[in-house]
C-alpha cells in the first residue's frame, strides 16, 4: 500500500459569480427581513419620550422591510434563471432528488450528519443531495414568503407587482391569516440559518474541501489521488 502518496487537489470552479453574489445578497436580505419582520410583529417600546410628530421609527422599520423584500424577491428570480443557464453545479437538477443516486446520497449524508458516521468516499462536489434538497425546500419557503408578503403589501400599494398577489388573500381566508402564516414562516428562516451555517462549517471539516470559502472565492477542491 502506498503509504505516503502526496494528495494532490484539483481546484474546481463550482460557484460562479452570480451564485456567490446571489448567496450573500440573499443572506443579508434574509437577516434584515427577519430582524425588521420580527420588529413589525413585536414592536419594542423605544423612544417613548418623544411625541408622534417627532419620530417615524416604526414606519422606517416597515420601509426597510419592504425595500429589502423587493431586493430579496428579484434576486430570487435571478437565481431561478441561473438555475437554467448556470454551470452544472448551479443547475436546478441539483435541487430535486429525482435520481436514485441522489436519494442514496441523501441517506449517506444523513448518516454522516446525524449519526456522525465517517464519510465514505466523496459526496457530490457541488451541493450534496441532502443540502440541495433542503435548498429546494427553502426556495419553496422563499416563494411562500414572497407570495404572502406581496399579498400583505397589496393593501398598501396599488403598484402592479403587489396587486398581482391580491388573490392570495381570500384564498388563505383573509388578511389576518396571511399575516399569521407570513409571521410563522419567519421561524423557518431562523431555523434554516442556524442549521445551515453550522452544517457548512461541519462539512468544511469532514469533507476537507474548502466548503466555507467556496461561497466566497468560488472554488472547491477535488482530491486527485483518489483517481490515481
Amino acid at each position, binding site marked *: 500500500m502506498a*503509504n*505516503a*502518496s*502526496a*494528495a494532490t487537489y484539483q481546484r474546481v470552479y463550482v460557484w460562479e459569480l452570480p451564485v456567490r453574489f446571489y448567496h450573500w445578497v440573499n443572506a443579508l436580505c434574509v437577516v434584515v427581513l427577519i430582524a425588521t419582520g420580527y420588529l413589525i*410583529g*413585536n*414592536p419594542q*417600546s*423605544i*423612544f*417613548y419620550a418623544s*411625541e*408622534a*410628530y*417627532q*419620530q*417615524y*421609527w*416604526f*414606519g422606517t*422599520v416597515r420601509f426597510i422591510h419592504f425595500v429589502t423584500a423587493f431586493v430579496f424577491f428579484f434576486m430570487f428570480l435571478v437565481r431561478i434563471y441561473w438555475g437554467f443557464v448556470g454551470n452544472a453545479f448551479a443547475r436546478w437538477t441539483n435541487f430535486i432528488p429525482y435520481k436514485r443516486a441522489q436519494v442514496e446520497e441523501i441517506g449517506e449524508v444523513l448518516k454522516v450528519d446525524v449519526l*456522525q458516521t*465517517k464519510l465514505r468516499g466523496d459526496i457530490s462536489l457541488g451541493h450534496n443531495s441532502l443540502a440541495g434538497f433542503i435548498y429546494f425546500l427553502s426556495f419553496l419557503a422563499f416563494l411562500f414568503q414572497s407570495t404572502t408578503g406581496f399579498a400583505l403589501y397589496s*393593501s398598501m400599494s396599488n403598484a402592479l407587482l403587489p396587486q398581482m398577489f*391580491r*388573490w392570495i388573500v*381570500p384564498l388563505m*381566508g*383573509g*388578511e*389576518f*391569516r*396571511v*399575516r*399569521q402564516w407570513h*409571521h*410563522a414562516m*419567519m*421561524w423557518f428562516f*431562523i*431555523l434554516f440559518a*442556524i*442549521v445551515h451555517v*453550522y452544517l457548512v462549517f*461541519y462539512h468544511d*471539516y469532514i469533507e*476537507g474541501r474548502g466548503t466555507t470559502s467556496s461561497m466566497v472565492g468560488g472554488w472547491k477542491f477535488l*482530491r486527485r*489521488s483518489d483517481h490515481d
Partner: protein
Amino acid sequence: MNSSSPSIWQIMKSKGYSRREFLQFCSYAAVAAGLANSHLNAVVQAFEKKPRPPVVWLHFQECTCCSESFIRSSHPIVADVLLDLISLDYTETLQAAAGFQAEKCLNDTIKKYPGQYILLVEGSVPVKNDGVYCCIAGKTAEDILQESAKDAAAVIAWGSCASNGCIQAASPNPTGATPVHELINKPVINVPGCPPIADVMTGVVTHVLVLGHGPELDNQGRPKEFYSRRVHDTCYRRAYYDAGLFVEMWDDEKARKGYCLYKMGCRGPVTYNACSVTKWNGGVSYPIQSGHGCIGCSEAGFWDNEPFYQHLASFPGFGIESTADKIGTTLGIGALIGVGAHAVTTNIRKHKLIEEERKGTTDDSTTRETTAGQD
C-alpha cells in the same frame, strides 16, 4: 316593471309626506348611494316615476344585530322611508303579519314580481343534516333561500353571517353554516360586519333602489365604496402607529394618551371596513375611538383568529397560549442546543483523530493521505 305598483313619491304623498320631505329624502338617498349633486335630478325622477321595488328581507341564523343597526341609520329619514314605505313585503322581525298571512306575503311577492324584487338576507344558512337547524314555516332555510333568490332582481347579504358565516361558521361549525354566495349562483352583494354600519347598509340599498343595480364590487363581493380600505388606513391613531407609540396595557399611561392599539391586538391593519370614516351611531365614535382595538368583525373567519387581545392568533393545534413566536423560540433554542451538542461531539472526534494522526496509528487511508500531504 309592473306599472300597477305605485312609485315612491306616490306612496309618500299618500302617507302625508310633503314635497319638501320627499326632496330631502331624495338628496339623502343620493348621498347614501354616493352620487354627485348633479345626479340629484335623476334620483328625483326615479323615485317619482319608477314603481317601488318590493323588498323581501329574510332572517336565518342570526342575532338580528343587522336589523338593529339598520334602524339606527344616521339619516333616519332614509331608514324610515325604506322601512315604512318602499320596502319590506316580508321581514320576520318587523312585519305586522304573522303565520300563514306572513308566508302568503312572501309567496305573493315572489310570484307577482319575478325579476323585480330585491332580496335581502340576514343570517347564515345551515346545510348540515338536511338543514334541520333552521326551519321557518316547515321549510329549511336553504329551500327558502333558493326559492326567493331564483327570481330576485338583486341579492344583498347583510352582515358577516350572510357574507361569510360569522360565529355560526366558527370552527367546528356544528350546523354547517354557509354564506349566501356559496349557495346560489347569482351575484351577491356582500355587506359584512357584525353588524354592518347602518349608513353602509342604507348606502347599499339606496344604490340598488336608485340606480337599479348594485355598486361596484371587489373580489370578495363587497361594495368597493365602503370596503376598499382598511380601518387602519384612515384611523386617527395612525400617526402613533407610524411613530411606534403603542398602548402596552389597558389603562396604562399610553392608553390614556390614546396611542395606537396595535400591540393590544387591534385588527385594523387587516380589516376592510368604513368604521374609521363613517363611524357609528351617527358619527359619534367607533371602537378604536372608544379605546378598544378593532376585532375585525367584517373579515371572514374572524372568530377563529382569537384571542382578540393578541397581535397573533394562538397557533392552530398547540393550545390557546401558544403563538407562533413561542413555538418558534422553543424550536430555535432546540436547534441551537442541538447544533452546540453536535459541535461538541464533532470536536471530541476531531481531537481524537488529530491525536491518532500525530501518533501515526490511524489506518484510515483518507487521513493518511492528508497527513502525508502536510509533511
